[in-house]
């Protein structure tokens, strides 16, 4: 299989929700064919650029999954199956996204906000930031504002990344910034936000330092911040 075929097959299997060979897919009869784990292994063996896989195989296919869920074609378990695929792929690709031997560009606390379980995008951002040389402390998903603020305080992190995928949970981000303010910590830390429902205007509204469209955009913004 050449690079193009492998990437297309990974995207196909993310949409089918198949992590390993023996997994069933959304459609019938795919058992036994190589799935995300086996295909990503090929990526590593053939030294295909891991970033290409993230951009061309993982991110776009989750959008397709979201569309299918919107249309009522996919159910929650189908979405979850696809999410597992991206998680498995990122676990394997993570070490290959890192620039070896780069000095730390600073401490970065990352979290999906309280009430929100979506962590695929945040995990991708975390791995890409690690790869770009940041010292990332990933707090996970559904993290309370108190814990996020406490961790920023304890680590003295210069950067805080917040992720939210629900219109109901994105408001948490504003609350966190307000708490940072009240605790007198606002100037210590740059707050970057992301996640599908967020936007530049939302970032402006809640007083975040930056809105990040995706992981690469986040890295660009961090470069500018480091100036």
């Amino acid at each position, binding site marked *: 299989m050449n690079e193009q075929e492998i990437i297309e097959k990974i995207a196909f299997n993310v949409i089918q929700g198949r992590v390993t060979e023996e*997994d*069933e897919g*959304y459609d019938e009869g795919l058992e036994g064919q190589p799935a995300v784990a086996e295909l990503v292994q090929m990526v590593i063996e053939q030294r295909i650029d891991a970033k290409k896989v993230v951009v061309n195989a993982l991110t776009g296919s989750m959008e397709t999954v979201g569309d299918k869920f919107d249309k009522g074609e996919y*159910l929650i378990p189908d979405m*979850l199956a696809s999410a597992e695929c991206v998680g498995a792929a990122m676990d394997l690709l993570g070490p290959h996204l890192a620039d070896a031997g780069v000095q730390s560009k600073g401490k970065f606390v990352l979290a999906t906000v309280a009430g929100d379980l979506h962590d695929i995008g945040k995990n991708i951002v975390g791995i890409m930031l690690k790869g770009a040389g940041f010292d990332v402390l990933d707090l996970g998903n559904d993290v309370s504002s108190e814990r996020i603020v406490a961790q920023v305080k304890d680590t003295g992190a210069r950067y805080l990344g917040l992720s939210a995928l629900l219109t109901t949970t994105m408001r948490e981000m504003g609350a966190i910034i307000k708490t940072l303010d009240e605790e007198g910590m606002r100037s210590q830390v740059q707050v970057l936000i992301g996640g599908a429902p967020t936007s530049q205007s939302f970032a402006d509204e809640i007083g975040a330092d930056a809105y990040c469209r995706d992981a690469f955009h986040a890295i660009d913004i961090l470069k500018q911040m480091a100036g």
Partner: protein
Amino acid sequence: MIVIAEKINATRSAVREIIEQRDEGRLEDLAQRQVAAGAAYIDVNVGTGNGTRQDEIESMQWAVSRLLDATDKPLCIDSADAAVLEAGLAAMGGRPAMINSTKADVKYLSTVMPLAQRYEAPVVALAMDGQGIPGTVEGRLNACRAIAGACRDYQVPLASVFFDPLVLPVATDAGQGKVTLNTLAAIKAEFPEARTVMGLSNISFGLPGRPMLNAAFLQMAIYAGLDAAIMDPLNADMMQAARTGDALMGKDRHFRKYSRALRRQ
């Protein structure tokens, strides 16, 4: 749920006709429809009840040879007579088959277990002995213990055994449903490597509303540890009852089989 498709059974008059007239078209069709509906094994019982042992052997050889062409699925060779079982297994030409059945009776164990060993075939083992079906959990479990002992003697791994806890109609004894369910759980606890199987429809014999009774009992049995069922895969409601039970027990990752079946409707 491992579905052992029950329709090719000569106690049904339509199938008796197929066997007697050697009607291979209808035989193959019946097998293929059951496979398409989700059968993992096709049960083959050619005992018409009104022929000699030699008739049954020849019928079995004919049916097996026709079915080998009709489907890739393994067959479940079903007879109370070990000679018929052996003829069916030999006719498989090395393809995998299941044996249906033996019970805890020396006469059966000493003839059927060697076949299971020689053909490396999974075997259905009824939780009963020469005296009949024990009325209690302990009685049925004792029958299973005797069968497990024979497995050791004949070098048949317990992983090849499908214990059948047996089902008696609740119409005559309302306590029988629980005896079967508790026997299932006890078998699973004592012989974790072994699997379990049963035929379901007996439970509702003599009562109205049989489909609902059968489906409810199937799902309770799945909870108690049922791995396989001898059932009619063409009965869509029972098939979905099985998928629903499996899904609720966490045996259908991401509800793949469950939701795919609903999508097809």
